[in-house]
Structure formats: structure tokens, C-alpha cells
């Protein structure tokens, strides 16, 4: 069996597709909406926005989060901002330009129609959030302020100090709280989804575990929306929160949902380099810092002098040198790869020579310390708390770290996966960022999917089921899923081996980072494909999960997540091996230009790779399905930020 990958792109000119489609979609009349049960998993930007909006529309919504409160989802940690083609700056922005920048930034590996819709909807998002009371930065006249961001030559980014994600999420959380209060949405906190229930080929519900009691439960719905984020924690060290995981989407994949482009991961250029082996996660410093900071390393190798002792003439501002028109504001993948190059050459800085400098001395000289403090004060404080160094006096040290995953569940224009009734929103899907995401676009996509796209397209699906009841939870489909989930938990509890879950997670992360990180080659990927299954086998025969399954057990929660990361990792590497071109965040050493830039192969690889679950021997059993990408409105060029 192979997947049917019909992207369902509406007819008509690009500009009219979304409007036409909204007219063509079937509607559910207001008095009928309460007859439908909708399950939303995850309460980040996409999940909270979708649950709130569906509740407002009158559907019966159940929303699930493994956090104690919906407000804690990792969207909250986004710092820099959110893009919108408002053109309030009068600097030549437009919906088409945002669309164009996003397609180009994604290295021509995303769908034109989806990206255009994203750019259109970006206008509504800012309106919605401002009306909710999101305290965006403002000018003295009271109107909204903007800043510029990597990969764009216009200032289209709206922001709330260095806490834009927090403020947008609180806006969505508050809208959700209103619906919970009104009784349209039922909140299930500290509840983790462990399986999708599929009956007769469509999604009819989920299986969850109550993280306080350990109880497994069945929940039934006419549609299931997965808004569960990305899989960056497959690397162990990343900027993701500790609990971020792939389980929801991976379980959906095992039940028949295509998993698209798992090799596309974004490595963010400005994170604090790791300091020692106790490091549990990496901290991002907002990309907005690149607006005023200058990136450099010493010209010499293994230079142990302090930054202040290195004279101007012995510094290499390598991004400004190589990319004069974009300079320090080149897209993330380009900035990251260049940092890796100079560190690999032996020109890294810091005690472990594992970073590059981000220097604010010139900016402080030009604008004064108080301006820099106003712009980045909280980031500077955060940096000092973590490293013990004062960035007003010594340059920051930064290095790339995994940050975002462009790959995810394959979805059509309606955000529906290959399982009817199962939708994926936000980072959980693959749809809009191609092979590389531009800064300030993740928040935009999460909210676009959650507030505007999902609620419309899900209604189009539900309309076809009017008059039917949700499948009752005593149906065999639910009990089979419960049994399977219980079996998985029991097996993990019963291994009773010697090593901790974290040990295996760390080992897995090392393999994936070394061979499928910022730069990849055939030999390395093949090596990873031999090491990952061996590690997975060892995990299942040697892990030990302390405590009991019938109560709070953080080790067990983690074990279930790491077990799924083991499988995803193998598919990710398999995907990276098959894609013999370089594009965006996927850099294959075999495919580069003479100048060392990523070289696409449009003739052979201009498609979305949607993998179908084939069996436990993932690298051999997974079936590749291709959705060809065609471009009507943009001309494919080799990206250049020179």
C-alpha cells in the first residue's frame, strides 16, 4: 500500500486560492456545531488558538496538555518576534514579498499555495493579537513598532520585548481560558497522548495517560488535531524544552500518517555553547541580536587571548566579509554553517574553543549603552546569569544549536494528514517552511494554522459527518489501542536493566548530532544507520525505569518519549541519506557549490518526501512517497545572500 498524496491545492490564481477554497468548503451551521466532538492535543500557539477558536464557533472541544497549565507550552520561549506583511514601515513589504521571502528562505522546498496563504493570513494575526491585548512594542504615537530579522530586507517583525512568544501564547491561552470558563472547551491537563485511535481508516479518538494517576483513558471525537510541536529533542541537547517530544506525531505515523521531510531540522545560529557534561539543554539568544551584534573569530588558529586583547586587524568578521549585502543578517542555516566552518578550522573562541563572538562594542559606541540596554537588556541579563560573563564588556560567545524542525506530519492544503480526520497544525506539520524556516515565522505559522486555517478546514471535514455520533469508547478500536499502550508501558517497566533513560537519550543525541546535524555525508549517515538500531535494541534490553506506573513517574514519561525518538531518529537519518542534494538546513557535503554553499538538485529532488510506516526495521521497511513540487509564481534560483 502506498499513500495517496493529494495536496488538495485549490484551483485559480495564487491570490484567490484561499478565498475560493473557503467558499468551496462545506460549512457546519451554528446550531449543528454542538453535535461535534473535536479533540485538540497540545496547547502551544497552534493548539490553544485552535481549541479557543473551535470553542468560540460552538463545537465541543476537549484539549489535552501534559503540562500543569496550558500556558506552559514551549511556544512561550520564542523571543524575537512574529512576521506580518502589514507594511506599516512603508519599506516595500507586501503579501507577495513575504510569500517570496519565505519560499526562497525555505530553499524552494515548500508548497507555493500554502506559503501564500500563510502570508495572507499574517495580516489577520496581528490584528487578532493586538485586540486580545498582546503588549506589542509601540512607537510614541501609540502605533506598532517593527524590527528587521534575518533573511529579509524589510522591517516586518512585530515584537513584545524579548518575550514575543510568551505574550502571543498568553493571548491564545487567555482566549482558551474564556472558552473553558464558558464550558465549550474541556481542559485535560497533566494528560499525555500516547496513541491515535483509527477505525475504518479514519481517526476517531486518542489514548491518553493521566500523569498523576497513571491511568490510561480513551477519548473519542469526530476529528483529532495534533498541535504537538517538533522533534528537535531527538538531538538530546537543543533549545527545546525538556519535555518536547515526537510521541504524538510518531504514534500517528505508525498508525498510517505520512511523515514528511524528517531530515529538515533548523540549527539556530545564536545559542550559548555548552559548558560541560552536566549540560541538560541549550539556551537560545534571540536572533534579533544579530541586528546590532557583529560576529567574528580571530584570524589565527587556537588563539587563547581574551577578546579585548585581539586587535581589530586580527579579527575576521566572516559573515560581513563573505556576504556583504546581508552581512550578519544572513538566514539561519547560512549563519550556522559558517560558524561550524570556522570552529572546525580551529578558530573557535571560549575555554572549549566551541563558539564564535557576537560583539556589541560597535553598537554600544554608535547608539549608546542605554539604547542597547533597552533593546536587549533582558537577553544580556540572561546571558550573564548563565555564563557569568557581562556582554556589555566582553563579547557574547555563541554557537548553533537545534532549534526547530521543518519536517513533520505530511498534510494537504487542509492541514489534514494521510489519515482522514487527523489534522496536524503548527510545527507538528511539515507544510510551510520548506527546508529552512526564516526567523519570526514559527509564531506566524502556529497562529495562522490555529486561529484561521484549521478551524475553517476542519469544519469542511466535519460537515460530511453530520448526523453521526462519535465512535463510542467501548468500541474494539479503542480497547486495542489501550491494550497496545498498556503493553508498551509494561514492557518498559519490566526491562529492569542497568542504565537510565537519560543515558540512552544522550547517546542517541550524540549519534544524530554527529552524523545528521549541521552537515551530513553518505558515510556518516550510513554509520548512524548502523548505530541507531543497535542502540535501540540495547535500550529495550537494558533500560531501567524506577518507580511504579500507577502514579507520578517522570522517568516513565521520559522513557516513552525516548523510545519513540529512537525510531524517529532512524527515519530522519534514512531521509537525509536519500536526499542527495543540499537544501536549506539539510547540507550534504557531496552537494555544494565551489564557494561551499548549499547546492540544490531541482531536477531530482524537487519533491516532498513523505515516508510511510512499513515495519519495525525502519531503514528498510519505510516506504518513500513523493509529492512533486511545482512552482508557478517564483523562479527557482540558487539562493544567494552575497
Amino acid at each position: 500500500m502506498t499513500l495517496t498524496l493529494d495536496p488538495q491545492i485549490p484551483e485559480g490564481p495564487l491570490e484567490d486560492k484561499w478565498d475560493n477554497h473557503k467558499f468551496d468548503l462545506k460549512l457546519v451551521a451554528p446550531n449543528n456545531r454542538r453535535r461535534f466532538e473535536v479533540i485538540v492535543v497540545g496547547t502551544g500557539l497552534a493548539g490553544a488558538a485552535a481549541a479557543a477558536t473551535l470553542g468560540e464557533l460552538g463545537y465541543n472541544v476537549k484539549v489535552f496538555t501534559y503540562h500543569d497549565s496550558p500556558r506552559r507550552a514551549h511556544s512561550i520561549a520564542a523571543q524575537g518576534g512574529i512576521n506580518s506583511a502589514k507594511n506599516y514601515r512603508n519599506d516595500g513589504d507586501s503579501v507577495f514579498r513575504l510569500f517570496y521571502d519565505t519560499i526562497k528562505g525555505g530553499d524552494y522546498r515548500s508548497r507555493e499555495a500554502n506559503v501564500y496563504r500563510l502570508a495572507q493570513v499574517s495580516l489577520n494575526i496581528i490584528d487578532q493579537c493586538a485586540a486580545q491585548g498582546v503588549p506589542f512594542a509601540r512607537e510614541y504615537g501609540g502605533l506598532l513598532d517593527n524590527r528587521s530579522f534575518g533573511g529579509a530586507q524589510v522591517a516586518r517583525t512585530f515584537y513584545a520585548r524579548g518575550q514575543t512568544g510568551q505574550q502571543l501564547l498568553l493571548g491564545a491561552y487567555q482566549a482558551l481560558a474564556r472558552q473553558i470558563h464558558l464550558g465549550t472547551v474541556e481542559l485535560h491537563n497533566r494528560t499525555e497522548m500516547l496513541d491515535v485511535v483509527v477505525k475504518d481508516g479514519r481517526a476517531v479518538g486518542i489514548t491518553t495517560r493521566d500523569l498523576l494517576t497513571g491511568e490510561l483513558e480513551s477519548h473519542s471525537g469526530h476529528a483529532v488535531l495534533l498541535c504537538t510541536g517538533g522533534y528537535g529533542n531527538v538531538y538530546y541537547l537543543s533549545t527545546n524544552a525538556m519535555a518536547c517530544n515526537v510521541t504524538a506525531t510518531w504514534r500517528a505515523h505508525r498508525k498510517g500518517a505520512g511523515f514528511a521531510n524528517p531530515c529538515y531540522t533548523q540549527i539556530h545560529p545564536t545559542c550559548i555553547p555548552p559548558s560541560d557534561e552536566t549540560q541538560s539543554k541549550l539556551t537560545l539568544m534571540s536572533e534579533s541580536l544579530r541586528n546590532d551584534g557583529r560576529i567574528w573569530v580571530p584570524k589565527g588558529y587556537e588563539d587563547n587571548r581574551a577578546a579585548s586583547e585581539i586587535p581589530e586587524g586580527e579579527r575576521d568578521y566572516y559573515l560581513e566579509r563573505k556576504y556583504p549585502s546581508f552581512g550578519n543578517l544572513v538566514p539561519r542555516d547560512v549563519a550556522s554553517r559558517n560558524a561550524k566552518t570556522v570552529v572546525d578550522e580551529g578558530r573557535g573562541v571560549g575555554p572549549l574553543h566551541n563558539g564564535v563572538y557576537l560583539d556589541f562594542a560597535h553598537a554600544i559606541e554608535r547608539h549608546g549603552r542605554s539604547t542597547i540596554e533597552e533593546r536587549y537588556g533582558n537577553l544580556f541579563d540572561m546571558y550573564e546569569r548563565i555564563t557569568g560573563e557581562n556582554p556589555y564588556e566582553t563579547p557574547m560567545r555563541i554557537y548553533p544549536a537545534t532549534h526547530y524542525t521543518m519536517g513533520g506530519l505530511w498534510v494537504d492544503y487542509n492541514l489534514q494528514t494521510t489519515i482522514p480526520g487527523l489534522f496536524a497544525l503548527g510545527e507538528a506539520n511539515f507544510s510551510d517552511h520548506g527546508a529552512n524556516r526564516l526567523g519570526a515565522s514559527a509564531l506566524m505559522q502556529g497562529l495562522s494554522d490555529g486561529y484561521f486555517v484549521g478551524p475553517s478546514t476542519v469544519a469542511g471535514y466535519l460537515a460530511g459527518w453530520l448526523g453521526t455520533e462519535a465512535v463510542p469508547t467501548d468500541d474494539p478500536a479503542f480497547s486495542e489501542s489501550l491494550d497496545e499502550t498498556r503493553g508498551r508501558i509494561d514492557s518498559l517497566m519490566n526491562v529492569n536493566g542497568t542504565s537510565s533513560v537519560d543515558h540512552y537519550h544522550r547517546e542517541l543525541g550524540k549519534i544524530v548530532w554527529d552524523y545528521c546535524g549541521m552537515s551530513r555525508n553518505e558515510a556518516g549517515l550510513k554509520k548512524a544507520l548502523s548505530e541507531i538500531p543497535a542502540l535501540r535494541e540495547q535500550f529495550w534490553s537494558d533500560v531501567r525505569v524506577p518507580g511504579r506506573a500507577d502514579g507520578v513517574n517522570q522517568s516513565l514519561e521520559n522513557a516513552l518519549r525516548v523510545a519513540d525518538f529512537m525510531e524517529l531518529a532512524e527515519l530522519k537519518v534514512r531521509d537525509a541519506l536519500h536526499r542527495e542534494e543540499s537544501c536549506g538546513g539539510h547540507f550534504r557535503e557531496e552537494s555544494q557549490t565551489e564557494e561551499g554553499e548549499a547546492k540544490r538538485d531541482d531536477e531530482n529532488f524537487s519533491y516532498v518526501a513523505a515516508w510511510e510506516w512499513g515495519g519495525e526495521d525502519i531503514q528498510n521497511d519505510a516506504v518513500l512517497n513523493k509529492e512533486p513540487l511545482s512552482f508557478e509564481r517564483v523562479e527557482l534560483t540558487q539562493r544567494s545572500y552575497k
Partner: protein
Amino acid sequence: MNVLKLTLEVWRQDGPDAAGGFETYAVEIPDDASFLEMLDKVNEELFRAGKEPITFDHDCREGICGTCGVMIDGQAHGPQKGTATCQLHMRQFRSGQTIKIEPWRAAGFPVVKDLMVNRAAFDRIVESGGYITVTTGAAPDANEIPVPKDASDSAMDAAACIGCGACVAACPNSAANLFTAAKMQHLNLLPQGQAERWSRSEAMVEKMEEFFGSCTNHGECQEACPKEISIDFIAMMNRDYAKAKLVNRRRLGERKVG
């Protein structure tokens, strides 16, 4: 980098109804590790000794999600000002020190297990009125509502609250006034928040009082707050609450007449 040798006294409690008590652990940790990485290390050692690890809430580890938070030597989030537990680094401690680690202590935050508590009361307060009613799609153009920069900046100061609960834990009365005031004033300060200002003020304060103690102006909350939110917002909340009682009563009368 220095390695610190520390003695920890950690609160262990098996469940909400179980009796709890302190257990003592020794740990060696580099001073550039974070406080939670220190707890990770203790947990690895407990694991190796065949014991159950310490349960504690945490997630983003960059001071923004508000999931983490413990009492460290009687101080919510520990000794460093304006710092959540996850961002506290071990260079704030000295080798040889004994550190006492407890969960938030407040009737409104019952202990779930070990250092983990239930803060659902905060969600109930927000649900009672901590929002602006604007259905998706109903918003006017964002620049049609100018907001004076000062109002916007003050609203942002309040909105920076991460909902961690340190204010409640630090308060001798276990009052949640700083949290509630921050959530309320973020919205009450903005033009968008005016239509529901008085109903919001009354509802949120009264919901808060169902769970938490009363404020007697100790000011411990603002000292403990990892986002350094000012108790001035509590004064604003008190003013709005008092006024709301009058306004809402008048409105009730208006409705009856109309």
C-alpha cells in the same frame, strides 16, 4: 570552573496525602551547572543506588515557562534576585554549604509529589476574567487602536508574569495578589481592556479569594518574583476592585431600569 561539594536536605513526599520528610544527599557539581542540573545529577546518583529519583516540575529551563520553582533555604527560587530556579547557577553557592530544598508551601498549592505542587488555582483565576473577549476574526486593524507607549510598557511589565507561584510561596499569608494583579493590570491598563475592566476586576479578585490568603503588604512577593514585577500593580488592583464594586452595582441598577 570549580567543583562544589554540597549537602542537600530535600523534601520527599510520596503523594498528596502521604506524610513527607527531609532526606539528606551529598553531591559534587561544577559551578557552571544550573541548579536543576545539580538536581539531575542527584537523580542519576539515586538511580544508580536503586532509589527513586526526586520528582520536580521543570520544562523550558530558560526562565520563561514558569513550570519550575522550589524553596531554596527558605527563599522562593533561591538567593539570586530576578532569577527562576532553572536559571540559578551553582556559582551562587559555596563549597561545603548545606542547602535545604522544599516545595512551594501554600494551602492553595497542594503538594503532588516531592517538590511538585498543583497550581491549577492560577488557571481558575485567569478563567474567571483574565482575558479580553475578542472572537477570532472580529478584530479591527491593529493600528486602529493606538496605545500610549507608557501604558503599553506598563502593561508589558505586568504581562511578563510567568505564573510560577513564587509570589504565593514567599508570602507569609500565601496570598496570590501579585499574580492576580499582574494578570489583571496587564489588561486593565490597555484601551482594549476597558470594556470588561470592572467585571474582570471583581471576578478575578473574588476567585482569588476562594483559594488564597489575604495581602497584608509584606512585599515578599516582589522580592521573590523572577520577573521583578512591582507591588504597585497590587495597589492598582485594589483601586480597580473598590471602584468595580461601585461601578458594577450602578450598572446592575441601570440594567434593571432599562
